């Protein structure tokens, strides 16, 4: 049986401005502004974080363990999310969610968290030091930053099978999920002469499988850090995605990937199509072709477009669901919504992209860029077109172009407001978020898989949460309601 697909998205936001235009300072101001505003200054606990562990038997020869920065602003929110400074970007890591729709809700809540932080921060800064935030993945000059997805996967699925099942999807899903980009910015990209790409991220990927996230980025990342019982679970860390402004795209990104993983767990890797012969080349070539005509050979010598791969994978997923699969993603309606939207986006980009301009980011952005270019007879990568590209992702309502192109909203607005403060009820994020909300003075540190309490007497006490599917409202709400203090809670947990 496929394990329930606990999932979430972590997004590094592009940041400009701040005193001295220092991105680390600006990012810290953002995180601290929100933390002060929200009174949620719980520090993150690094015990149990070991990003250097590799899911493969041995670490690749070119692999280096990433640097973990422990001195930067870092906080846990009452919705169970983590808000912190990663490298030189503010990052929002959503809480653990149980369905793709919930994953979407908490990703959008993350945008709202950043927007609120921005307002609080800029209220205290001089106008010339005002900070701006962008939910994108590149600066157009060769620097990229990530939007990573995480999926709970059964540990007994061999990692090689995960790679075989995922590569074709991760290479081809950009045809409906890419956020679009004006121009290119790597040597290969520039040499191609392409003026518009499906994806923000594709041209930054250099390997098929690997441990890195900041250099030699791999299509399948092998970081083996389950933040859970490692005997039972993996956490597949997907680093290749674009940050989507389209809510439907975020839903389908989480839903399609989770469905294929559930299919892998339930029925094995045999049903999956052959990999592209050269996955990195395929990824990049597909990205450079908004007409979706480029074909790449697979391992068996057959050529396929990215669309062909997606069509095949959709059919696999739909048959699996028709057989009764997909329960790991939640109820029937939620799974149907993922499949229906996935299909409509695919048919739309093939038959008439304007039909899905309300759902596919690269199409929405391209229509804007092309419309503007034609109106003013501009060169295809003119600075004003690049500005449109950047401002598509601007978080400020008065500057955001994504907010103006008519993207469909499927997350309920009241639900988003609630998700900014309240954690999902069906994962351990509930227990984390509620403890931060109820006992803010006692929770001194937190991690995905534990909370540390300082009761003001005796040693610090760690409460492990090794199962992402426990710590739910159903399991802990009564207990929390009975315990007015952290002392009472810990006494009850001991008893």
């Amino acid at each position: 049986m496929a394990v329930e697909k606990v999932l979430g998205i972590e997004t590094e936001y592009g940041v400009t401005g701040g005193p001295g235009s220092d991105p680390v300072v600006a990012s810290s101001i953002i995180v601290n502004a929100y933390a002060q505003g929200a009174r949620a200054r719980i520090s993150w606990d690094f015990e149990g974080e070991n990003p250097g562990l590799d899911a493969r038997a041995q670490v690749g020869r070119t692999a280096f363990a990433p640097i973990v920065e422990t001195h930067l602003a870092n906080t846990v929110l009452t919705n169970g999310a983590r808000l912190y400074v990663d490298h030189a970007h503010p990052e929002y890591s959503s809480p653990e969610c149980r369905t793709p729709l919930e994953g979407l809700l908490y990703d959008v809540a993350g945008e709202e968290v950043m927007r609120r932080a921005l307002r609080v921060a800029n209220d205290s800064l001089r106008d010339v030091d005002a900070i701006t935030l962008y939910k994108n993945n590149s600066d157009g000059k060769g620097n990229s930053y990530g939007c990573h997805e995480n999926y709970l996967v059964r540990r007994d699925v061999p990692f090689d099978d995960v790679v075989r099942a995922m590569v074709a999807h991760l290479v081809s899903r950009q045809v409906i999920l890419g956020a679009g980009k004006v121009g290119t910015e790597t040597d290969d990209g520039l040499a191609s002469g392409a003026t518009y790409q499906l994806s923000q991220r594709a041209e930054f990927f250099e390997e098929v499988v690997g441990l890195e996230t900041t250099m030699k980025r791999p299509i399948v990342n092998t970081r083996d850090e389950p933040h859970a019982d490692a005997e039972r679970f993996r956490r597949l860390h997907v680093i290749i995605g674009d940050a989507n402004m389209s809510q439907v795209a975020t839903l389908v990104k989480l839903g399609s990937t989770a469905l294929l993983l559930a299919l892998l767990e339930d029925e094995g890797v045999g049903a999956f199509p052959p990999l592209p012969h050269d996955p990195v080349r395929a990824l990049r070539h597909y990205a450079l072709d908004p007409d979706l005509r480029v074909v790449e050979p697979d391992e068996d010598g057959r050529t396929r477009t990215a669309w062909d791969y997606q069509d095949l994978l959709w059919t696999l997923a739909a048959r699996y669901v028709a057989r009764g699969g997909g329960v790991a993603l939640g109820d029937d309606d939620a799974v149907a919504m993922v499949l229906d939207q996935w299909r409509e986006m695919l048919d739309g980009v093939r038959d008439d992209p304007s039909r899905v301009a309300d759902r596919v980011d690269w199409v929405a952005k391209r229509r804007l860029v092309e419309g503007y270019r034609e109106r003013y007879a501009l060169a295809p990568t003119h600075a004003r077109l690049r500005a449109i590209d950047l401002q598509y992702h601007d978080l400020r309502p008065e500057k955001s172009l994504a907010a103006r192109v008519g993207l469909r909203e499927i997350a309920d607005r009241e639900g988003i407001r609630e998700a900014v403060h309240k954690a999902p009820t069906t994962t351990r994020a509930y227990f984390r978020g509620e403890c931060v909300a109820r006992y803010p003075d006692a929770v001194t540190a937190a991690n995905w898989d534990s909370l540390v309490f300082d009761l003001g007497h005796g040693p610090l006490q760690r409460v492990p949460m090794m199962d992402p599917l426990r710590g739910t409202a159903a399991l802990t709400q009564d207990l929390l309601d009975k315990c007015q203090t952290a002392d009472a809670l810990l006494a009850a947990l001991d008893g």
Partner: protein
Amino acid sequence: MAEQERIKRQRTERSTPATGEVTVDSSKGEQLKADLDELLDEIDEVLEENAEEFVRNFVQKGGQ
């Protein structure tokens, strides 16, 4: 393709998506075009004033 349509029909019969189906009619394309034209009319008010400087100064440190 026949296989896809069969599967899609099956699913549609089994359950209705939580949000409304998007119906595609002929007027939608024209409406989209009109909306785009309208947005292009006003986009200069939203775009950063000096696009070249804005784009040039948008430099990020690499991340993950």
